[in-house]
């Protein structure tokens, strides 16, 4: 049921609650089933913590998420923020390079032929293989991590942008020709808005990859970050905390993605 200007106040509230329940109840059910499976798995294995034990550990971890006890021991909040910072830097660079390159590939077939083989070759390479190369190039752990995120998350940016450019209806370009728009105006007023939805899809994919990569990279490079926090907990064989970190990583990743979806919807003109 939809709400329009004719629905009364009380009915509006009832309908809103109804809609919410329709979404929330199945979701809650899903989570409950997951927890039940978890409990069964924990009871029948050696060393795997139960949901209750994990909850107890979580209360400790989140009690003071922003404490600082020296550079080697900081609250989980700082660790997440440190990782996010690296993601933003690495992804930012990927966007800065990837979007223009995607444009060029979509617009000029010569460049497409030149770059496509290289892209196909480099795309499937694992982040853990790029990291040592980053360390050799930059001789420092921080830029090496940023580099690893950059090189792993740039591919969706390039490919989705190129796809968007190539999908621009020829009619739009004909309009621009009839109007005798210069190349720069074409890019600004026609290409860029037309490609924006594709770019945003690329951004979503890239951020997802970047978030994945940073956790892996941090396990190897150390420092403050959620990846190294996990490594640290593994060093203590503290499985509850590893599970907590997994859930936290999932939640943060989900929030990032949802945030981008909301932005995409604002820029969407597709009301069909």
């Amino acid at each position, binding site marked *: 049921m939809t709400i329009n200007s004719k629905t009364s106040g009380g009915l509006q509230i009832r309908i809103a609650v109804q809609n919410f329940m329709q979404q929330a109840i199945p979701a809650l059910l899903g989570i409950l089933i997951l927890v039940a499976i978890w409990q069964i798995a924990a009871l029948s294995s050696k060393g795997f913590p139960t949901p209750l034990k994990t909850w107890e550990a979580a209360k400790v971890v989140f009690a003071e998420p922003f404490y600082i006890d020296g550079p*080697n021991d900081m609250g989980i909040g700082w660790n997440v923020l440190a990782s996010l910072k690296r993601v933003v830097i690495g992804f930012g660079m990927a966007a800065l390079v990837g979007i223009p390159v995607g444009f060029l590939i979509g617009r000029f077939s010569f460049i497409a032929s030149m770059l496509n083989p290289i892209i196909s070759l480099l795309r499937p390479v694992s982040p853990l293989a790029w990291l040592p190369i980053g360390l050799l190039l930059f001789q420092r752990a921080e830029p090496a991590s940023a580099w690893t995120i950059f090189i792993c998350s740039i591919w969706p940016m390039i490919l989705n942008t190129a796809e968007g450019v190539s999908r621009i209806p020829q009619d739009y370009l004909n309009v621009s020709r009839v109007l005798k728009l210069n190349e720069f105006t074409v890019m600004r007023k026609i290409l860029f808005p037309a490609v924006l939805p594709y770019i945003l899809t690329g951004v979503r994919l890239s951020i997802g990859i970047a978030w994945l990569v940073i956790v892996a990279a941090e396990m190897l490079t150390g420092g403050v970050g959620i990846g190294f926090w996990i490594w*640290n907990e593994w060093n203590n064989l503290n499985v509850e905390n590893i599970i907590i970190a997994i859930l936290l990583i999932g939640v943060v990743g989900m929030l990032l993605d949802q945030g981008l979806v909301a932005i995409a919807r604002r820029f969407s003109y597709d009301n069909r």
Partner: protein
Amino acid sequence: MTQNDKKTFGELSRRRFIAGSVALGGSMMMPGFINSVWAAGSDAPEKKELRVGFIPLTDCSSVVMAAVKKFDEKYGIKIIPVKESSWASVRDKLVSGELDAAHVLYGLVYGLQLGVSGPQHDMAMLMTLNNNGQAITLSNQLKQAGVTDAESLKKAVDASDKGTYTFAQTFPTGTHAMWLYYWLANAGIHPFDDVRNVVVPPPQMVVNMKIGNMSGFCVGEPWNQRAIQDDIGYTAITSQEIWPDHPEKILGTTSAWVAANPNSARALTAAVLDASRWIDTSDANRIETAQVVAARAYINTPVETIQGRMLGNYDNGLGKQWQDAHSMRFFNDGAVNYPYLSDGMWFLTQHKRWGLIDTDPDYLAIARKINRTDVYKQAATAVGGINLPADDMRTSTLMDGKVWNGSNPAEYANSFAMKR
């Protein structure tokens, strides 16, 4: 060491000590004066904040305590202990300069000098951090199959296909690898041909053993105690049984760093040496140390897992308990920390033995390059009251009776029945 040895050593070093300080000038004889003079003026450390990497093992204690008990400030520096995720990471950050120095495996640094398991880089070693305190853990599955020592392990290995059993160590050229190989070879098991041999980080060792994927590993405390506590494995042999008072971790850095920061190098060595002496002073100090390093920022494990073996209270998980005469030592009246050339050379001989290097290098020359006895002596003087040995070599007898004293290294490397 016997009582007699100790006495002679003490006398010799006292003479040496006095001789050394006379050379520096009469007014500098008292330790207090030395400290205050050296902290100021042209002897001031070039770099005050030093990033010293460590891996969360019990033997990182002297580096950590040097910072926590503020021994570093005594010598005009600030030590920032930086927890690292792997030996490979320590290696890379030492070479790139992201770390000024590190708590590091003896063999790793020597390997780097020759370009083995890392890019060739001129390295330096300022002092030995600890003796003893490592062990080889075998799985409970092996225990259930009747394997409780080297002999029974050999029987089990012979009775099965090659490669059935997997053993792990921490770094290809590192200390744990060499203890493991020595012990296996001594039992008649070829560490490369008869069993699988892998490099794996400590938590992975334990987890793999838990799920039955690992037969044994050699690693530092507290992991061996951990394995017993978690009912996964037992201690087959301690490293001090293989070589009593063996060199283990060192304070490593690059040759270039020492050249650029000689005063900082000296101050750093002095601070860690002072902290090492403090730890070994009493059981109370050891207990305090255990409580500090157990914290989240350092080893991140319950105190009980560290404290027992640190105090020498051993239980091998097979029902045997004892007070170990050669438990982990950080100072031992100066006997631990001196950069004996023979110690470094021993690792080179084992690298050659196992084919990690192809030809005999100039053992002595390399040890002379890496082991900075010059920096150590200056640091020892700064700390004051540190016994210095008369000789750059020391004599050791290993578990198989072989004696190593630094002479004829090429011959020694070649003298083993089992090699590669």
